[in-house]
């Protein structure tokens, strides 16, 4: 099996108070000693309540952690293997990091705050192409049109602004932006929780569809176990920054071992 990610002893501390003059900096543990592997072609679900550290893990995988909080302390290793060589994402910088970004892309919870409201949809989707590739204008335009179509939008949407779209369509634009550089890994951080139920199902179908088309491996972060049940091959349960249980989805759901997993499952109300 081809391991895309190998996460070893990952710990993240956020600075919890502002440092004033000589006062001592205090830290809060967001993630403590997390170990897991991520295999090519699978959909890995990470579940847990808010504050359990699941988003922090995703930020480490996207190499965004230092951009979000400069004073955070990150230790351990996140090894990314692109088939030819291995890289520790926590230490990768500059041009090498740019190459990695082409391979790993993210989709976030709130489509409104994750795109610039003053750019048109076309410009929003063009941005990763401008930053990460050296395609010319015509090639870029072709790519944008193709990805829009695959994400269930039309090429006439290129010149529209975000406020002209519905919430579901905005999330489709975010997905299109992530996929336009044809990454091999997609990290989706609660991509459905700001959407209506009927729209959630539509976007979930889109993810499944795009997984086939782009040959993606997906890390899907959510707190909705119903989604995990239908979409994820493997599941990681997190609590207070630690992994409390991981395994094949159907096995964990049928026979949860950890006490916290059990509470989480009984709190999840299904029809």
């Amino acid at each position, binding site marked *: 099996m081809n391991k895309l990610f190998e996460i070893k002893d990952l710990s993240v501390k956020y600075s919890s108070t502002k440092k004033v003059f000589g006062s001592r900096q205090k830290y809060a543990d967001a993630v403590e000693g997390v170990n897991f592997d991520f295999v090519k072609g699978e959909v890995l679900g990470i579940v847990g*309540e*808010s504050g359990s550290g699941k988003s922090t893990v995703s930020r480490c995988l996207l190499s965004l952690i230092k951009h979000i909080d400069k004073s955070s302390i990150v230790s351990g290793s996140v090894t990314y293997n692109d088939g030819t060589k291995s890289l520790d994402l926590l230490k990768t910088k500059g041009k090498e990091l740019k190459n990695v970004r082409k391979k790993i892309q993210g989709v976030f919870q709130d489509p409104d705050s994750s795109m610039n409201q003053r750019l048109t949809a076309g410009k929003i989707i063009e941005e990763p192409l401008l930053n990460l590739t050296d395609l010319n204008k015509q090639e870029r335009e072709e790519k944008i049109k193709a990805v829009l179509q695959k994400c269930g939008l039309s090429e006439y949407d290129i010149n529209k602004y975000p406020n002209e779209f*519905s919430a579901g369509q905005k999330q489709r634009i975010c997905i299109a932006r992530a996929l336009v550089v044809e990454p091999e890994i997609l990290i989706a951080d609660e991509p459905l929780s700001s959407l209506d*139920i009927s729209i959630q199902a*539509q976007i979930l179908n889109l993810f499944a569809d795009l997984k086939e088309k782009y040959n993606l491996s997906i890390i899907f972060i959510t707190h909705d*176990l119903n989604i995990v049940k239908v979409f994820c091959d493997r599941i990681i349960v997190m609590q207070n920054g630690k992994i409390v249980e991981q395994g094949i989805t159907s096995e964990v759901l049928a026979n949860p071992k950890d006490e916290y997993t059990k509470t989480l499952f009984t*709190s999840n*109300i*299904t029809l």
Partner: protein
Amino acid sequence: MNKILQILNLKTYFFASDEKTNKEIVLKAVDDVSLDVYEDEILGIVGESGSGKTVTAQSIMQLIPEPSGKIMSGEILYKGEDVLKKKGEDLRKIRGKEIAYIFQETYTSLNPVITVEEQICEVITTHLDKSYEEAAKISVELLVSMGIKDAAERIKDYPHQFSGGMRQRIALAMALAANPSLLIADEPTTMLDVTIQKQILDLLVSFKKNKVLTSVIFITHNLGLVAKYCDRVAVMYAGKIQEVSPVAELIKTPLHPYTKGLLYASAFIKDKDNKVYIIPGNTPSLKELPQGCKFCNRCTETIDKCFKDEPELIEIKPNHFVRCHLYNNE
């Protein structure tokens, strides 16, 4: 069973001007809604966003922002009296004292600059004949019953010092402070984690069981919660009630195609192509609703009639009402 609240032909409209033509357009957020709430029941109202469930609840409390919105006509009878006719001091005696309301976002429904104690005491001293000291004592008892640890000390804290689940408990304590009969809970747990959600709703049900509350209107878009906690449910779409039924029956035999769609979509049921079931199309804008049945452009079971005439809400089985031509065999 006695009716505690009767909504009769309620119409709440909003007014906006069209950007291009500058003409005024009328958005029928709640369009001719009639609904009863019985004593000793939890009534669920479900629907997608924009279906009019919150506006219905806000109309009961007269919280519609004028002049952009207005209750055009209809009656809301609370214990036989029309609350829509009440103004000023009379209205204050209903709000909080008889009917209480808890909101989705506790960040905006609690005052960030005064302590929790003052906020709960304000409710008690306004509605009940109590001094501040007595009110403070009652507030602590309320918080204890909500399961807040060290309530006597924590009550002096400000809202931001509590977590989301705690704040929702405080909001619930405030709502129950003046012993209301009817509680309107407008998506009280949507922002919360599943484990906290269960705690809050179990608490709500225990208060109803212990007769602290007579009835609850529970607004949500989560049909799983409705199935677990409600006695009866009303499904809303585009400002109209599409189906009303006892919960067990609705889950077992949903009649309206929209209800079926909602049920399948929220259970993430997969079909033979391994696709999750979806309701086709998007949530409608109130500006461009179709003629005839409001759901006809997304419905998979349409007949010719659906595009011409709007169906009436009719009783198919005892207590099971549906607004759909498929069941209207005249």
